[in-house]
């Protein structure tokens, strides 16, 4: 186990908790964009890309950004077409996705 393998799951878990706090619990408006935008541009994709265990960290990061942008776009567009537009709901879904992926990997790594 290396530090790198634990870094991203820890970041995903921690940032998901922080985003959930500032978006749904504490009205910290100045901190909200600073936390939410990077979270949405990295973590949903990282939750998927980490599954593939790519060899290079920077590639993982790059692909995580691409997949995050794609997933955010696809889900937001689908919600708009389906007539259930709700940024808060979509944010909650992505927070849960990142949280579960991060915790699952943390547990798996720590168990091995």
């Amino acid at each position, binding site marked *: 186990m290396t530090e790198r393998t634990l870094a991203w799951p820890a970041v995903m878990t921690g940032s998901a908790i922080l985003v959930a706090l500032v978006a749904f619990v504490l009205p910290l408006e100045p901190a909200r964009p600073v936390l939410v935008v990077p979270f949405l541009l990295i973590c949903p994709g990282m939750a998927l*890309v980490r599954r593939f265990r790519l060899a290079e960290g920077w590639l993982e990061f790059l*692909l995580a950004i691409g997949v995050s942008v794609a997933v955010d776009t696809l889900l937001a567009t689908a919600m708009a*077409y389906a007539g259930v537009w709700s940024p808060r709901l979509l944010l909650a879904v992505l927070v849960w996705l990142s949280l579960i992926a991060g915790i699952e990997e943390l547990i798996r790594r720590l168990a091995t």
Partner: protein
Amino acid sequence: MQPARRQPIQPPDWMQALEHALEGAWPRPDQGPPPFGVWLDDGHPPTKQIERVPSVQRVERAGVSVTAGPALLSLAAVALWAVGVGRVNLRGVNDLGLASVLPLPVLAAPVMATAGFVWTLSQRPPRRSMLLLHVVALVVMLYGMNAMVEPVPGPNIVWRHAGIADYIARTGAIDPTIDAYFNWPGFFTLTAFLSGAAGLGSIASMAAWAPVFFNLLYLGPLLLLFRRLASDWRLVWLAVWLFYVTNWIHQDYLAPQALSYFLYLLILGILVGWFGTDRAAVRFAPAGVPRRPRSPATPRAVQSLSLDAVRPQEGPFQRAGLMVIVIVLFAAAVPSHQLTPFAILAGVTALVVFGRCSARGLPWLMVVMLVAWITFLSAGYLAGHLSELSGNVGQVDTIAAANVGNRLRGSAGHQLIVYIRLAVTALLWGLAVLGWLRRRRHGQDNMTVTLLAVAPFPFLVLQPYGGELLLRVYFFSLPFIALLAAGLFLPVKGAAASWRAAGAIGLAVVVLLGGFLFARYGNERIEHFTTEELVAVRHLYEIAPPGSLLLAATPDLPWKFQDYASYDYRTVASLKSSSESRGGDLVKPVLGIMRQYRRPGAYFIVTRSNRADTEARGILPPGSLDRLEQALRRSSTVQLVYANQDARIYALRAVGR
């Protein structure tokens, strides 16, 4: 069975002379695969070149200055730029654009950064962190100019995009009957979601630094692509540098094409990297150079990657995952932009048809996804615009006129800017052709790069795309053109280049930089907005009831950022055809259309940027806007309801309504 070897094409004498002029003793990297693919198999350069390589110790003796010198140059350049750019007075901009008011330090700063970059590039091994520092500094200086000098973000389209995202955020609906943007709404739903989730308000607040953000975003996919196509890290970074000093076409503002371009680069990067094959490369290997033996443990597709590429190590599970990622990325590109998915399809199809990509079924899947979107979600728009979209297929004259000829008009300054753009394009393409020849001369595999460079060009015979297709084709082919152009300067024989080559790189980049500042910011007089103009537009929204006609002299003003579908937006320029038959008289068509909107109201706005647009690009007959305003002031049906330093608003008089 061994494929037949093709002898390298014999270069013309002038090519040899050029090569001799650029060759020299720039040391090859100590680490990493051999540069630019001449050592195809054994990893050893020719003995003659080894003799010319200076020792590692000599470089190490150079001490801290070798590392710190270039870094300090770039940091000093950024500081100089930041100080200088704060002194820019946009009121003085003429038809030559921002370059006409840039102080000397701002002009010198990118040149200093280039010197630092070339200095770092010449070190052994090149320090990638330093190269990254130089590139980030360059991007900030070249693309952060707008954010630093403009009080209000531009261009006008940014404000329209903010209005579309605002509409979706407020209504949660996508109405494809409003306009074409709502038939490809992916980018706008994304930005509406981001602004809603993050509590940002209007996305216009994100617009100022969008060019810097997007260009930094492109860096990752560019490195992914280039390092798969060329193993010499100096070549990779030089191509990146050339990309940034020639990306003048300004498609990186807050817009669907800017984000889709990131997906375009990433998809091609993944496909070239993990699904690329090099059949042609083996065929074109120069005689006498032994081929690398294939390892039985290495998958065929990975083994057969471009000969000079960095080879990925991922196995079948990772490759399957990467294909899933490619499909997800393309699925996001399809609803986000009209043109980019077709550019992706063209590139992927070219790679597959010429045996450069093992994902043979991928183009078919992409076609199915595109057809599905067009059939089910943008059919209404296409049905209403089919003749417009298909009417110019094959009409090269019409398309050329729309993309080039129609742009060569307006003031003398503006025409000079258009010529500079053409010259910069021709220079870059010329360098790429020479780089292509030089690579070819040394038996290099140009096929994948060439395919991706030329794949967008067939679009030019399909339709004018509003006169922007040549720009878009330039944009899509730019990374690969930049890589070929870089291949001219870094020699293909391993020992990279002499001081002469370094000088040639510096000279070419400085010339391209000069062209960049004029080409990219040549429309600054038209495209920048003042605070007074934005205040006037906000006042217009305050006084105009929903359903009103909002008429502007030209489209160049910061409007449509709110109540996107609640008003009828028109421009005098669009009424021009009806006025031309009256000898350029704009009064009758303007009053005519305003009278049609007595209820709920009609408003006519003229701004400083409208006037600049009219004068520079010659959109309206000279003096016609002044005559129109004089006539409106005398008119009994229209009154001036608002005026500030940079804008005036006229409205139909309440009396008589």
